[in-house]
Structures are given as structure tokens and as C-alpha cells.
């Protein structure tokens, strides 16, 4: 078990290195650099050139990459040219918003998935199962951004039950109870929109696991020795069916990354995804590189987590 984890960790290092090179080159290849955006026509081109030289923008790419990479290792991702502040601080401000959004989405995803999956697996081929299967069918096909847009339109604008933008009502002092409540209120609709779509795969998985497990020999044995129906389901079937769901946890995190970009953009929620989109259109590439690297690291860790849970659950998967 520990050997597997250690080996997986070692594989991560070249992956992150490669990702960082790719991301850096991409940012370099984007048209314009950080100074083109600030252009004031009255500035002397020679002065601009000197500024470029001073910032190291004229060095060959590998020198720039090495500069950037060694600094990034120490947590210094440079300055955001748009916000005039260190990238690390900027992302730090936005990160908590995205983390809360993702956490609530995860919680809601499992809160929805587990009861629905159990009902539809236990009573399969009843009308309840058909309703749930119908819902998963719809949710599987619907693109997240359209569903989120419809939710915003219906519950944000039409009924006016939820705020339509931002992460908190302005003017509240951080730390007070109202502040927390307002944050939760702002986060609820975006998280619910995402959870209702992402939960679908988990429901389907849980349902088919339960239906599969129901027909296994050990369940027949359990029934034969007189275990009550509740005990058969809670102790025997559920335990075995929840394992694959647990293993999927890491991949859920990976899936959330793409989702938050859409959700944050639709609900004007000031998180990392929104920062990414606005930074890329303004060529604020020190922010872009740091964000892509961060998201990449998150998805690597998500995959690692899944592999670790899987190998803990199922010894056959461990790397020899």
C-alpha cells in the first residue's frame, strides 16, 4: 500500500514539471505581453524596450522559465499587472471562494446521490426507480452551463429567491453571523446547480452496484440464515456498493475544476475560474500560468487520491 502511494507520488513530479513547461510556453506564445496592455502612446518606445529588458522579457524562454519556476517553488508567482499585487495574494483571496463552492457542491452531490441511488437500486423497476432513472438520463445529457443558466433565470431572476451575482452582500463585516449567512445564501444556488448535474453519474453507479450486489451469493446466504431485510441492505449490500463510490471521490474533484469555471462565470461569482477567464482576456499571463498550474496540481492530486482509495479498497490494483 505505501509502496504504491510512494510510486504514484514519484510519477507526479515529472507530470507537474511538464505541465509547468507547457503552461509557461503557452503564456509566452499568447499575442502581446504584459506591457502592451498598459501602452500609453506618449511613452517613448526606447523606454519601453528598457523596461522589457529590465523585466527579463527579452531573455530566451528557458532562462525566463527557470527564473519563473525557481521563484514559483518559493510561492512567488510574480506580479499581476492588472491588479498591481502579487499573484499569490490575489489567488489566495479568490481561492477560498472556489474552495467553499466546491466543498458545498461535493456535500450536496453525495447528499443527493446516496438516497436516490439506494432507492432506485433497492426498489428497481418501480415508478420511483423510473423517475430517478429519468432524471439521471436528463442530467447526463444536459450541459452544465445551460442547466445553470436556466436555474439562474428561473430562481435568480424570475422568482427572485436567490441573489444573482457575487459571493456576499456588500457592506457586511467579515466574521459576523450575517456575513456567514449571506455567503451561504450566495453560494447555494451555484452549488446546487452544479451538484444536480454532477451527482448523476454517482447515482447511476450506485444504482447498478446495488442491483449487481443484490444477486450475489453472499446476499442469498445472508437471507437464508434469516437476516432481516434492513440488515441485508444496510450491512451487506450498502457496504459493498459504497466502495466504488468512495473510489470515485478523487475524480469528482477533477470534474469540479471545469465545472467551477462555467458556474463562476454564469453566477458572476468571484472565484479562481472567473479570475482565470478575465485574466486570459486581459493577457495578465502571470495570473494565468499560476492558475493553470494550480488547477493542474489539483487534478493530479484528485487522480492520486482516487488511486490511493482504490488500492486501499481493492488490493488487486496495487502496483507491484
Amino acid at each position, binding site marked *: 500500500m505505501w509502496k504504491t502511494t510512494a510510486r504514484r507520488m514519484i*510519477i507526479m513530479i515529472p*507530470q507537474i514539471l*511538464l*505541465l509547468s513547461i*507547457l*503552461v509557461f510556453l*503557452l*503564456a509566452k*506564445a*499568447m*499575442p502581446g505581453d504584459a506591457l502592451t496592455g498598459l501602452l500609453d502612446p506618449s511613452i517613448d518606445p526606447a523606454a519601453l524596450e528598457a523596461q522589457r529588458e529590465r523585466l527579463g522579457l527579452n531573455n530566451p524562454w528557458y532562462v525566463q522559465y527557470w527564473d519563473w519556476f525557481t521563484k514559483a517553488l518559493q510561492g512567488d508567482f510574480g506580479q499581476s499587472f492588472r491588479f498591481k499585487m502579487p499573484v499569490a495574494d490575489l489567488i489566495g483571496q479568490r481561492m477560498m471562494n472556489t474552495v467553499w463552492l466546491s466543498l458545498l457542491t461535493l456535500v450536496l452531490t453525495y447528499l443527493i446521490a446516496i438516497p436516490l441511488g439506494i432507492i432506485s437500486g433497492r426498489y428497481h423497476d418501480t415508478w420511483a426507480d423510473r423517475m430517478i432513472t429519468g432524471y439521471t*438520463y*436528463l442530467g*447526463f*445529457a*444536459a*450541459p*452544465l*452551463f*445551460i442547466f445553470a*443558466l*436556466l436555474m*439562474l*433565470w428561473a430562481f435568480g*431572476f424570475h422568482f427572485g429567491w436567490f441573489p*444573482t*451575482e457575487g459571493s456576499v452582500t456588500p457592506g457586511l463585516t467579515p466574521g459576523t453571523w450575517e456575513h456567514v449567512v449571506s455567503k451561504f445564501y450566495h453560494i447555494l444556488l451555484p452549488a446546487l446547480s452544479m451538484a444536480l448535474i454532477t451527482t448523476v453519474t454517482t447515482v447511476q453507479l450506485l444504482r447498478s452496484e446495488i442491483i449487481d450486489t443484490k444477486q450475489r451469493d453472499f446476499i442469498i446466504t445472508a437471507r437464508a440464515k434469516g437476516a432481516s431485510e434492513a440488515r441485508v441492505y444496510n450491512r451487506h449490500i450498502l457496504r459493498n456498493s459504497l466502495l466504488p463510490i468512495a473510489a470515485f471521490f478523487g475524480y469528482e474533484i477533477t470534474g469540479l*475544476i*471545469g465545472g467551477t*469555471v*462555467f458556474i463562476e*462565470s*454564469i453566477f458572476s461569482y468571484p472565484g479562481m475560474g472567473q479570475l*482565470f*477567464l478575465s485574466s*486570459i*482576456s486581459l493577457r495578465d499571463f502571470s495570473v*494565468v500560468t499560476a*492558475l*493553470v498550474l494550480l*488547477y*493542474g496540481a*489539483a*487534478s*493530479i492530486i484528485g*487522480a492520486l487520491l482516487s488511486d490511493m482509495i482504490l488500492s486501499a479498497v481493492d488490493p488487486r490494483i496495487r502496483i507491484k
Partner: protein
Amino acid sequence: MGNTYADQTAAQDAGKSPSSWKILWREIVRDKVALASLIFLGAVVVIVYGVSLVLDQKQIVTVDLFALNQPPSADFWLGTDYGGRDVFGQLIIGTRNSLSIGIIVTLLTGMIGILIGLASGYFGGTVDNVFMRFVDFFMILPTLMVVIAFVTAVPKYGIVSFSLIMTAFLWMGIARLIRSKALQERELEYVQASRTVGSSHLKIMFGQVLPNLSSIIIVTMTLNLAANIGLESGLSFLGFGFPESTPSLGTLVSYARNPQTLEFRWWIWLPASILILVLMLCINNVGQALKRATDARQRKG
């Protein structure tokens, strides 16, 4: 010699259980929802490609200052957008563009995925190891971000570069699937037998293993088509897909990012949203029916 071989296999086919194509087709006909979806999809394709031959894209995307944000009327069946452009015309052209790019990307990713998956599954060992580490690296990339970054970085941006960028980051899923199936397939006796007779690797891979995987390839490509259309419209929605002069379904939906449009001008974004939803649902229906057909336990008939 090739001919006699083909004749032989054809003769064998006729005598044994129904071919995979027949099974797939039978499952769709049995499943009324899937059949209806397929007919609807066919109708959409015919209408969209047919009507867009008549429509003039240049004229539709030209700004008309005298008809800004008009609600639906006899002149403009679905009203106009903030530039006075006819929404109905954009919807037709957008559907055509979205479908086209979805199909192109699906075919390209399918081809790359099949080649890599087949090679690494069939040969196994070092080849497999090298390809799979490559795939692993692509799998951990935050696809959406990297695609957006590429779209911004490409100097001459157009439909071709857009589909190539999407292809470059979407072929891994199908490659993995084909690889795992090919790994199982190569242990089977027919491959060993063919090898003993002296067939070349290429012939076994493409002439014998590939046809055995055809049904699973069709299923995956159908489901991928839905996913690719969703991703393309999503990217266009965020503003990193098609340029505004080549509308896609996502472009129309993206007008809803303006709260005024979202709240008061439903005719601009709602039809496109519903169309995306229905298209993806229909493609998924067909795909799921095909998927059931490949698994004998779940077939309806």
C-alpha cells in the same frame, strides 16, 4: 488472395449469428425513444444543412442598427439580438456550425484514439507503456483551461485550428477504451491462429481485431459526439470558441451572460439552449440504445 479471403469471411458471416451492425440496428428499432430521436436528428440535420444553403451567412451576421433587440415578429421569427441580427438565421447557421465541428472533432479524436489504443493494446509491453504514460500526462491536464489558453495563443485562429485544438486534448478517453479492449482481444485464439498462419501485425490489427471492436467504437463515438457538441457550445459560451462572425449555438447562449438579455430577452438565448439540450438528449438516447445492444444481457430484443 485478398479477394478469396474476403469471400471466405463473407460466407462465414452469413452462416453465423447476426452481424454487429444488424444487432445495433435492431436495438434502435426496438427502442421507440431511440428511434424517434434518430429520426428527429436526421430531420434536424437535413433542415439545418438544407436551409443554410439558402441563407446568406454574411447577411445574417451583418449589424442592423434599426432592428436592435426586437421581439419575435413576422419579419424576424425569433426576434433580433443586440446587433439587430436575425436570431432564427443565427440559430440555423449556429446549429450547422456546432454539428459540423462536433462531427469533425469526433471523427478526428476517434481516428487518433483508435490508432494509439489499438497499437498499444495489441503490442503491449514497451509500446503500451510509452503510449500510456503519454496518455496519463494528457489525462491530468485541466482540459478546459488548456484549451482556452491554446485558443487565445494561436495566431491565425479559425475553424480548422479550433477543431485541431479540441482534438489534441480529447483523444485520450477513446484511446484508453480501445487499448483495454485490444488487450483482451489479443489473448484470444483467433489472433494466435492468425499469427501462426503468418498474417502480418497490420493485417491482424486492422483486418481482424478492429472489426471485432467496431460496435464499441460506434457506441463511444456516438456518446462522444454529444459531449463534443456540449464542449464546443460551452467554449463558445465562454467566448473562447467560434468568433462572433461564425455563430454557433453557444454564441447565442452566451448573449445571456448579459443579465438584461437573460432576464428580459428570452428569444435570443432560450431557443438555442433548448436546441442544445434536445440535440444532446437525442444523441445520448441513440448512444445508450447502441450501448445496450453491445451488452447481450441488457438488450431489449
